[in-house]
């Protein structure tokens, strides 16, 4: 194989680094989500506050990815698949950052919930968080492998999160009906379920981007 010229080598290295940055962000979001739910389950206010504080790191990372993408666009004039890659990276970074915001919102609600008396645990939450984390991992794998099939499979799993959210909704309504004193807490829990469901939507967005990256065409997966 012919040796790559030095400037091309640096360019490909920078492209690969952009990809790595997405994976790093993905890991940050994954941990933020897990920690936020762990803090909720254990009523750990300190950990919940930590998740809120750490969200700025995710935001900073996103800025870094955007800068990197812009520099590459400006200096290398990438073509075709490279161009798609760079623009996809920008979008995925935005979605990941939004997922981080949801983790932070969940933690803010946890802090509020910790000030209230304990309530019975919601069985749906562990399943929702597991689904979110599993799908996030799958979406990032699809990104890494430019695998449109995998991305599509991952997007289709969004239904599960929607169903779980609905069942939390029913549960909370009946809880509130039975005991008026739970209204505040049940509302917070509803919001948490909603945040988790939104995380799922952002994962679907990532999947759409991966399909665009792999195939070069856009597919709307929300209605799937």
């Amino acid at each position, binding site marked *: 194989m012919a040796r790559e010229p030095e400037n091309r080598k*640096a360019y490909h*290295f*920078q492209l*690969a*680094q*952009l*990809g*790595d*940055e997405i*994976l*790093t*962000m*993905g*890991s*940050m979001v*994954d*941990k933020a989500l*897990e920690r936020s739910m762990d803090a909720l389950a254990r009523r750990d206010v300190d950990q919940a506050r930590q998740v809120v504080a750490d969200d700025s790191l995710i935001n900073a990372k996103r800025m*870094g*990815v955007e*800068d*990197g993408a812009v*520099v*590459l666009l400006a200096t290398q004039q990438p073509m075709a698949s490279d161009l798609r890659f760079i623009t996809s990276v920008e979008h995925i970074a935005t979605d990941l950052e939004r997922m981080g915001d949801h983790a932070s919102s969940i933690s803010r609600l946890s802090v509020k919930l910790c000030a209230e008396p304990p309530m019975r645990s919601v069985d749906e939450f*562990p*399943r929702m968080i*597991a*689904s979110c*984390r*599993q*799908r996030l*991992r*799958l979406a*990032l*794998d699809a990104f*890494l492998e430019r695998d449109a099939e995998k991305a599509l*499979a*991952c997007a289709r*799993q969004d239904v*599960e999160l929607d169903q779980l959210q609905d069942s939390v909704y029913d549960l909370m309504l009946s809880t509130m009906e039975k005991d008026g004193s739970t209204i505040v807490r049940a509302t917070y829990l509803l919001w948490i379920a909603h945040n988790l469901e939104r995380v799922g939507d952002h994962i679907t967005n990532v999947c759409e981007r991966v399909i665009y990256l792999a195939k070069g065409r856009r597919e709307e997966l929300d209605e799937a």
Partner: protein
Amino acid sequence: MKIDLHVVVGALISLAWFVGQWFLSAVGRAPGADPLPMAMSDPAWALLTGSVGLAFGSFGAFVVYRTDQGRQAASREAFAVSASRLRQSVRHAVEATSPELMNSDAPASALVASRLPEEAEPLAEALVDVARTLETHRESVVRERVRVRQTLASIAEGLIISSEEGRVVAVNPEAARLLDLPGDGSSLVGQSLVTAVRDYEVTETLIKAIETRAPVTRHVRLLPFSTMGEPSMPRRGTSVRLVKVSAVPFASQGRSPSDVGVGSSRRTSGVGAGVIFLEDETELRRSESIRRDFVANVSHELRTPLASLKALVETLEEGALDDPPAAREFLRLMHVEVDSLTQLVFELLELSQIESGQAEMEKRPVAPITLLETAYRRLRTQATRTGIDLRLAAEHALPMINADPMRVGQVLLNLLQNAIKFTPEGGVVTLTASRDGGGIRFGVTDTGIGISREDLTRLFERFFKVDRSRASGGTGLGLAIAKHLVQAHGGVIGAYSLGEGHGSTVWFVLPLSAEGDALVNQKASIASQTRGALTSGDDVDGTPSIAVPGVPATPAMP
């Protein structure tokens, strides 16, 4: 161009001629000398002779030069011819050797060398030498690599080595286990560290170490999430691992490509050369927290009776002493508190003895029914007094078990006391024993308050009390002790309940003694003989009468 002797000599001769002529002409022009008998003018003559000399010299030089070139070309040609001949003969030698190679132990180089023409021998030897040296180097490199891999695999800590470019150079199986990497992780060699590890805190530790040029240690919660599982059925909860991550940077050799990272002002990724160690601290932390809980529980249990005692003493001091009936009542209460303290300390000691394996078990063959009857007799009165119907229901002719009757009796008593304590008046507590595989299953079933599903999982923990108000007393150590005693007998213990208000059963299975085993085998073999006799159609002799009640038709094999 080569300056030959001919050229020099020619030039010298012509120079001498020219100088001589110039000298003569100069002399000839002097006054009083005879003019030279020459027709030509002196300078022209000199020029001519000089030119002739120069021409001679040049010609000589040219001839020499041509000859030299011819000789060189000839030798080049000869070399080319001999090289091609050599190549051919080497090829012939190799081709001729190929079939021989299959059936020979001799090294290939020796076989090839033996087929080469004689004149190529020195060259062949040199080539074989070179090949041998290369082979030795290669072997030592391979050996070294295997040794390094074995060393890495044998290290108890997880280990990942990263290159200057931030790629995985090596990863050992422990690191693969901790990070939930596929296989032993060797397939990830060559990948970017970030892609392979997928945990930003681990990679960040290395980045920090490289930035500060010093080792960095962090405690990280790893959240392995294998994507191998069915994606639509997410696992509930992940096996979180608490890991100590230490990163040591390698001394940098020049500018690494990560220095020119993406982004104009900030370096977005600073992964470079270094090594990451991962130490699993999950068990350590768990045992730490168990110890912390234990100390907290013990001090709580000690504090409660001590506080009561202090209050009673103070009341007595403040004047209750002068009221004899009240004082007597207080003294009785103090007695109760001291008893419960003594009981707690006793049970703690016992638990620690059994747990550490120091408690002696005097095992011998015992009939299960004897154990049941002893426990039954001891608690019958207490049960009757609290309005509970205590029943005994055991299978007939149970085989002997190998146990310390004192200790097993203690377990049965403890279970019975619990059952009586948590069963309201009018309830029933049943003591059972039956065959269970290779052992005897004991059970205590009550119609009491029952146990919730969450509590069931924690029932055998130290200090765990279903009744959190602690109104029912007890140390919360009874079932923990029972569990350890049963385990010391090689048995298992468990509990089930249909839910709160539906009663519960605590059971344990103890293995049969050798005699008990033999007895069962004997019965089993007789039973099968009998069946064999019957199915074969032979006349039934005296043996079938042995079909004892209680022995199942199909004997359960131990």
